[in-house]
């Protein structure tokens, strides 16, 4: 590689490119974002589903993430309703994962000799995914730059072997590395190029549009109906017999069912932003999504990728 880690990156995209190159070099499959709306990189099936079962796995990818309640019409210096996470998942977690992670910080221009990097206890739990793990938030000079988790359970299943998961909040990390105070001022591409674009040039307008829609315009009745439909469809998919009459093969549809789970989860987030979910209802909705996630996990471990060994009779 001709990557120059001694120099500081100059743009948001350069930081992403360096992370991609670094993790590719460490042997990860560099994947693309999942093509659905999700709240965090963890929802990508490359993490949620692939952390289940016994098969080794190593993937890294950027995941656009949406958190409707965090919308601030593009005005807050570091809050966005749409942002990017960089996600790494390696199963089984390698013994030198901390060192590999620190290497990635060096790759994006953080000089270990000048900065104070700390691993501060932060246990991770996703009630919607029925998942938890132990790990840290990683601090660089007092700022949280990543989440580092050893998955213990996902979708109600104990993880054997354990996956190591790294999540970088890309905008925040990049702002720190580039020395930017307001996210909208951050150079998106190289500021020296003829058509230099800032993060604001790319996203300020969409932040405004989505903030308005998320908070005030989204049709809650339609959303409520979509939630119910996704929930029903997920259950219906999973009820289908494993044997496909058309091909004569055993096809467990874990991924299509999981898509419906993701959809329900995102619709719940939208409903939450619209303020139509009361405190008591909240728990009930989270529980309904968790039920879907668990059912999908149950299905995934019955698939080949989930470690299921085909029986001779099939």
């Amino acid at each position, binding site marked *: 590689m001709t990557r120059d880690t001694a120099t500081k990156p100059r743009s948001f995209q350069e930081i992403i490119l360096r992370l991609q190159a670094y993790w590719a070099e460490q042997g990860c499959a560099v994947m693309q974002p999942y093509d659905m709306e999700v709240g965090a990189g963890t929802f990508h099936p490359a993490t949620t589903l692939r952390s289940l079962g016994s098969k080794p796995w190593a993937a890294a990818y950027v995941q656009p993430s949406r958190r409707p309640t965090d919308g601030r019409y593009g005005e807050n*210096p*570091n809050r966005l309703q749409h942002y990017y996470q960089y996600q790494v998942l390696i199963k*089984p*977690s*390698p*013994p030198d994962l*901390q060192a590999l992670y620190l290497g990635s910080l060096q790759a994006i221009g953080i000089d*270990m*000799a*000048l*900065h*104070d*990097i*700390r*691993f*501060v*206890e932060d*246990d991770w739990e996703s009630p919607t995914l029925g998942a938890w*793990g*132990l*790990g*840290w938030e990683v601090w*660089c*000079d*007092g*700022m949280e730059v990543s989440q580092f988790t*050893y998955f*213990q359970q996902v979708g109600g299943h104990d*993880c*054997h*072997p*354990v996956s*190591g998961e790294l999540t970088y909040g890309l905008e925040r990390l990049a702002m*720190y590395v580039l020395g930017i*105070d307001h996210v909208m001022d951050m150079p998106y591409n190289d500021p020296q190029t003829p058509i230099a674009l800032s993060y604001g040039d790319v996203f300020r307008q969409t932040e405004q549009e989505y903030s308005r829609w998320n908070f005030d315009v989204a049709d809650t009745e339609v959303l409520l109906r979509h939630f119910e439909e996704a929930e029903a469809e997920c259950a219906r998919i999973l009820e289908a017999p494993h044997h496909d009459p058309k091909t004569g093969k055993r096809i467990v549809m874990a991924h299509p069912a999981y898509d419906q789970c993701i959809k329900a989860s995102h619709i719940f987030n939208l409903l939450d932003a619209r303020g139509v979910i*009361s*405190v*008591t209802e909240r728990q009930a909705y989270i529980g309904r999504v968790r039920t879907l996630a668990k059912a999908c996990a149950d299905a995934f471990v019955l698939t080949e990728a989930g470690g299921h060994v085909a029986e001779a009779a099939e």
Partner: protein
Amino acid sequence: MPDLLIELFSEEIPARMQARACDDLKKRMTDGLVEAGLTYASAAAFSTPRRLALTVEGLLAESPTVREERKGPKVGAPDKAIEGFLRGAGVSRDDLEERETPKGAVYFATITKPGRPAAEIVAEVLEEVIRNFPWPKSMRWGAGSLRWVRPLHSVICLLSDEAGAEVVPFEIDGIRAGDVTRGHRFMAPDAFSVVSYEDYAAKLKRAHVVLDAQERADHIWNDATNAAFSQGLEVVEDKGLLAEVAGLVEWPVVLMGEIGADFLGLPPEVLQTSMKEHQKFFSVKNPKTGRIEKFITVANRETADNGATILAGNQKVLSARLSDAKFFWENDLRAVADAGLEGMAAPLAQVTFHNKLGSQAERIARIAALAREIAPMVGADADAAELAAKVAKADLSSEMVYEFPELQGIMGRYYAMEAGLSQPVADACRDHYSPLGPSDDVPVEPVSVAVALADKLDTLTGFWAIDEKPTGSKDPFALRRAALGVIRLVLENDLAIELEVVLASAFGPQTAEFLDSAAKSADAKAKVSAVMEVEGSQITYGAKEAILFDLLSFVHDRLKVFLRDQGIRHDVIDACVAMPGSDDLALLVKRAQALQGFLDTSDGENLLQGFKRANNILTQAEEKDGVEYSFGGDVKFAEEAEEKALFSALDAAEPKIKAALERQDFEAAMSALAGLRGAVDGFFEAVQVNAENEVLRRNRLNLLSSIRTACLSVADLARIEG
């Protein structure tokens, strides 16, 4: 005698778990060694973010040989029995010894357990300790099955003496013990080997690791206070934070930084909380202004630029955090300016307090009505108390308290002042949660007292009504704390409050409604009627009475615990609780204090005996005769001088006791009662109560009854033990 060194080197151990882990490692390891016969001279355990270490000095080189004698079957017993014994004892037939006992000849076996080398025992105990370590939360990693707080990387297990050091052969889940460790993650990452604890601690220090958490904490505190002092400032002490920060670094470096001028106008509590919770910074105060002007952060390394980059980064993060806090503060102030505190409280109608006790808004309405009722009893203005109760929890829906729940009340006070409410109302917002514990300050300002009492009484009656009482160690709604709060508020402010009346009105319409519906369900009906037997009245009405009765006994029980700590005997309290008006806690305590003082005197002690004697005689006679001797005696039927003396002593004492009790002067009442002692003693010495002459006997019984009545008017002396 060898020394033992153990190091368990892992990824970062949560700071809050380190101290406990040190204790557990030391205790479990040394207990295991001693149990296996290896005694030792001394032991100490240490922790850093990445390691737990244990040194044990003066360990036995091997466990002592143990001989044990075992009694077997009788000589001539069946072969099967003898063989079974041989198998169990692990000896052969030739090893058996025949011995005569009173029951005949019996086989004896002597079992010798040879001593084992320390290394063997250490390895066994260490494996046991690692596999069963009581981490609050532990995890697996990679493809292994071992559990530890975070992935375990290496183990030092070393026995050393004058001859040198030897690694204890030990392996756990693929990790083989050695004599190698690593220094600071960034400043000295290379591996090095050690030969003893002294060598280990010294080499670690050279490798930028301070092994002892206390030494790190002392270092941080010294450097922090010096840095502040040199600028005329002082560090706000926070022992919990200091311990936590000492658990986050192996090589502490103290850096002091500026808080941006924009943020100095934030309330100091906001600055302190935000810096502590999010950044683990210490606050640095200017003693002249009382304002927090700087912060101290503790880095985990030295740098070529003396921490300049690190400090700049921390300052930047702090600015972002405080911008958030300022944003919340300004939004909250704007909300208060627009709609007042009651407007701020409006969303609480949507917040559930408890699904059977309604929303926060409904709860607040109940508290407000109650605070208004309590106000005159505590010398507070009723309107002010009601208003304070209505707004005291408004800050629960402020943005700041949403972000920092621990600022509840404190923010309420600021927002109340901003809304132009009076100082007593504003203070009540902050103080109505108090007292939170047995040593917490108790509010004294009448408006605060009224709201604090109303808040706690509503909690108690509410949870009592829905039958969510504390059981054993479970008290999820902190009802014991609420009851203690009521007790301390009443006693420390010397309030005359009839608790029964106040508790009865604390049952809002909501609780009544709940009781009605509960009475309809079979389960609750059984529960209610069970309590009912105590009261024996009608169902719905009776349910409320029974619950009140039960709640008041709960408060009395808490009072007993509280007073026991102040040296008042439980039977003394029982004797006073049995008196009418014991729901007036301040009165109850005065009576109890006077009674305990009275019983400590010899007059009191003797009079108590006289009372008991009179009471026994009376009870027997009343049982036998089937009548109650309550008419009072007549002095004209008195024969003996001692009898006449008692009549006149009683005549003298009775009005004094009555008058003293009327002005609630229990000491005077009891000292008047004590005046009866001589006459009572004289009476029992000289006078035969059960005289032949029935007129004499009845008159004497009636006289004793008057004595009993006089005693019982002061306290229920029958409940006093001894």
